[in-house]
């Protein structure tokens, strides 16, 4: 029951999450790099409707954090003024994904108050805004790197499986080398060769390419197996005897069978690649400050005093859980449905249907 409903629930949720992250500029109340140096490690702002005098307000409001100690970040609410939460606030022009200009943010409060729904970090930067902007890197690294891995895997796997002989030998031995190496260390090694000093966009592209290229071997092996068995089928032999070219047979008879494996591999690889990006950034090899990614946000937890004192700093780790859950439920669904999916695809096609 649950399994059948999975894609109908999970897919829109995932698409929604990616959209929110893509439109981070609109949903985030602040820019990811804007520092509030009087408010380091401010706890999440509390939203009130009843003020300190017991009066009920129609519009939810917040109180400003006021530091109570010199040096050490400790705050209490300053009850002298209320700051109602406003929606669709107008802000100076910012760009969404570097293309579309925009002048509105979903919500905000009037200065000098700041709204930190998920608290602030060591420089007083809003964690929610950083989480959303950071998602642009962390969440999209997964699908984009998977596209690279799968394209390479399908291309090389199908070539190896279909042509066989020495091409197969060379490609598969090469794949085994990739499989035998522990991928994390391989990532470190490759990352070490790349330039240290580059803009966040370049680093993002580099990360995707590095992660994607390293992961080609496993899908390639699986796809090779399918191609290998498919080329011996009677309908392929028949097509060959009618004089069909290799390209035609690959396109018409072999690649369509690969879709099931490709989908399960995608559901498996995406979360793994999200984690790969988070790991690299966590270890300081990903995007550089001040650009956020979930990994470099979590890097702050490497310090004892932060993990012990400021719980909201670990929220990016919690954000990873639903993402993983969503992808792995899709994986479970596709694994069980693998055969029925390729069938479903074939239903809409005319002509031969493989047995």
């Amino acid at each position, binding site marked *: 029951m649950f399994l059948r409903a999975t894609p109908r629930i999970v897919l829109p949720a995932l698409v929604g999450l990616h959209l929110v992250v893509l439109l981070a500029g609109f949903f985030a109340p602040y820019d990811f790099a804007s520092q509030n140096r009087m408010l380091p490690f401010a706890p999440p702002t509390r939203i009130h409707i009843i003020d300190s005098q017991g009066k009920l307000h129609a519009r939810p409001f917040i109180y400003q954090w006021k530091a109570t100690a010199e040096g050490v970040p400790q705050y209490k609410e300053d009850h002298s003024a209320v700051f109602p939460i406003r929606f669709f606030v107008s802000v100076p022009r910012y760009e969404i994904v570097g293309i579309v200009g925009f002048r509105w943010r979903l919500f905000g409060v009037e200065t000098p108050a700041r709204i930190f729904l998920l608290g602030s970090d*060591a420089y007083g930067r809003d964690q929610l805004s950083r989480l959303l902007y950071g998602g642009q890197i962390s969440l999209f690294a997964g699908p984009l790197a998977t596209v690279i891995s799968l394209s390479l895997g399908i291309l090389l796997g199908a070539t190896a499986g279909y042509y066989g002989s020495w091409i197969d030998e060379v490609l598969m031995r090469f794949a085994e080398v990739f499989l035998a190496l522990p991928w994390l260390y391989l990532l470190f090694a490759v990352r070490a060769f790349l330039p240290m000093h580059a803009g966040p966009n370049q680093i993002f592209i580099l990360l995707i390419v590095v992660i994607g290229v390293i992961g080609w071997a496993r899908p390639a092996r699986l796809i090779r197996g399918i191609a290998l068995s498919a080329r011996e089928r009677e309908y392929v032999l028949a097509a060959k005897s009618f004089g069909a070219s290799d390209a035609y047979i690959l396109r018409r008879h072999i690649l369509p069978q690969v879709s099931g494996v490709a989908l399960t591999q995608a559901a498996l690889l995406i979360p793994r690649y999200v984690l790969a990006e988070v790991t690299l950034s966590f270890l300081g090899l990903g995007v550089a400050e001040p650009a956020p990614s979930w990994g470099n946000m979590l890097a702050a937890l490497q310090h004892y005093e*932060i993990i012990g004192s400021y719980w909201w700093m670990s929220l990016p780790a919690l954000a990873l859980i639903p993402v993983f859950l969503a992808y792995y439920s899709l994986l479970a669904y596709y694994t069980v449905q693998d055969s029925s999916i390729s069938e479903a695809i074939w239903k809409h096609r005319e002509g031969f249907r493989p047995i």
Partner: protein
Amino acid sequence: MLGESGHYGGRLVISERTEPKTLNPLTALDGTSRDIIGLISADLIHINRSSLGTEAALAKSWEMSPDGRRYTLRLRRGVRFSDGHPFDADDVVFTFEAYLDERLHSPQRELLIISGKPLRVQKLDAYTVRFELPQPYAAAERLFDSIAILPCRLLKPLYKEGKLADAWGLNTPPEQIAGLGPFRVKEYVSGQRIVLESNPYYWKIDQHGNRLPYLREIVCLLISNPDAETMRFEAGETDVISRLSAAGYSTLEKYENARGFRLYDIGPGLEYDFLFFNVNDLVSRPLGSITYKQTWFRQLAFRRAISMAIDREAIVRLVYQGRARAMWSHVTPGNKLWVNQEIPTGLHDATGARGILRNAGFFWRSDGRLIDPARKPVEFSILHNAGNVQQMQMATMIQADLKEIGIEAHAVPLEFRSMLDRIFKTYEYEAAIMALADGDADPNVEMNVWVSDGGTHVWDLTPKRKLEPWQEEVDRLMNEQLVTLDYPSRKRLYDRVQRLIWENLPVICLVGPDILVGAKKRIGNFHPAILRNHTLWNSEQLFLRQIQ
């Protein structure tokens, strides 16, 4: 000097972050080795870590000739090495011979060479030695500090065989190591700990005539992770913690009373963090883009604008949680004898910085980016040590500050050794954040930083064709203070150096962090000091109070 009189016995557990590399005083470079060697050896004249003045050690008295070039030292009689063999002038002569030997590459050798000529040592009798300096040298008695006196009987044979540089490694059996310090090596377990036991022949006594040290043993655990070091101190596994970070300090503060330890913030030490630009002469090197950016870096107005744009108070507050001092010249407020109190403290002023840049011909594009007079956007990278959290945070804050005035700065974390490689060898960097810490408060140890051909003149290490007038003046002043013997005149000269550095900003000083340490309350005579070793400098007097 006189502390509370304690009682014997007990074991003190301390920690170090790295393993010592050697126990050989001649070749030790790293901090841990120097700390351990400090406990097992002694010098002729010692700098008191607390008062910063000199005091008699193995030399019970000394005299300077009127021209300041000849020092006669009278040695203590009846002193024995930790293996029971007596100490006399032969050991002193041998020690200085070894330290001055070029083949041994001792890091302290440089200090004993004065304007190209070595110090000369001569034995007058078994307990009197005379040192001759090639020229008058200010505060020359401070040179003797940390020159560990070596046992001639044990090491001379090795010296003759040419094996002295490799002597006293970590695997040398403890009975073959002998020193004049309050402790001696008992055991070393690779990667885990080094155990020192009290030296039964130690020469210092307390005010009641009892032989020091009081402690029976010092166990030094090797804990490489600073967080683990903090946690183990918190759990009571170690008795003393040196070099606490400000963040660690505030974490431990919560447990201060419950767990029976006390934390000490003894104010700024001698260390200072600074930002500097690469102004090395790169003509013969293929580093075109850096060469272009050097036209900005060489402009005083540019450096002044950067200095003004940096919010040092925010660095103190956020990075050090208030446990540091903002700095505008290079002598920390912790160095009370030498700091020039007249240096004005600047203010963070982005508008002022913009004004300076505008007057120098820079302007701003419509998107707020700063453009130089040749119409190129101003952009550079700042190297910092990836292993140093404070420097990483400083770089992030400076990045945000410079963005305010339209400068795009990229923070580039690098592993420490490859960062040093770029700064000292390849000159492949644009700007960098570094920290310098001195072993002594005296200006003489800063010679190699500020004199234009000094080895730590980090921002410009290449040979110079022409010096700027202020740099010529710094060279002259530093060399003059070196041969001036009275403190007030030296202070006047050094005050002027500080003012020149403040005016011309060859480096942009940022902050001087406080020295933060912690110790169990039951340790007696614990008086942390701003000079290293901050906590165990008076190890012979430390003792453990009995718990009632």
